[in-house]
């Protein structure tokens, strides 16, 4: 079921349409707080050359991807999050037995991603302070 650690199919909003359901993507579920879900974006699209990877991006090689029921190596962008209602509008397979969950992160990976998210939040708060009054 959709819970922390689930890799789940979501009609994730995109930069072009940031507040509406977009293309079907696999996302990583960070938290469920009914009626809302917080997910982070994954992609196998190439990263633009000569652009440093931002903090909070975890690379998964082919072997790790296959272990998570995915065909290709991919990146998880913990720095690119979305929150949306837990509804079929956003989770098209919500009513299926697996709810669109293709894999669950093992405990060690869940903890690693949780700690990365904590680091990101600390950095986010420092950035807000620096930009603040």
């Amino acid at each position, binding site marked *: 079921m959709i819970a922390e650690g689930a890799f789940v199919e979501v009609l994730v909003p995109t930069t072009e349409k940031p507040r509406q359901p977009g293309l079907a993507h696999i996302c990583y579920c960070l938290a469920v707080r009914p009626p809302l879900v917080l997910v982070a974006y994954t992609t196998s699209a190439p990263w633009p050359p000569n652009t440093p990877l931002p903090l909070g991006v975890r690379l998964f090689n082919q072997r790790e991807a296959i272990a998570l029921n995915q065909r290709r190596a991919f990146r998880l962008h913990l720095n690119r999050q979305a*929150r949306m209602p837990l509804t079929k509008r956003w989770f098209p397979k919500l009513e299926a037995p697996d709810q669109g969950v293709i894999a669950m992160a093992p405990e060690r990976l869940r903890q690693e991603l949780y700690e990365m998210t904590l680091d990101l939040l600390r950095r986010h708060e420092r950035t807000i302070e620096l930009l603040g009054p």
Partner: protein
Amino acid sequence: MAKTQRKSRGSAAASPKRPARPAITLRLDPEQYRRLELLARAENRSPTNYVETAVLRDMAAKEETSRAITMFVAADAAGLVPGPLVRTEGESDQRYAERSALTDKLFAIPDTD
């Protein structure tokens, strides 16, 4: 080798609600154009839309490196209040409390414009 040239669209094409969108001309070698067509077709896009999307993605990636967290908030989530965090199977009380505190802060991050 691709070349671009700035070109203004005529005022008649401009919508009264949206400002005119500057157009550019993109020149590609025939073989590069053929590859562009194939890539675009694979994503059910026109070559023009494929190029536009690639440029927008590139710009977004560069902006992303300057922000710690980019948050998209669904339009239908804006007025909803998050309830108690759903506990992960086997999660200790301490981790649950720490994760609740973390998600309090994450759920409070406003939409990134």
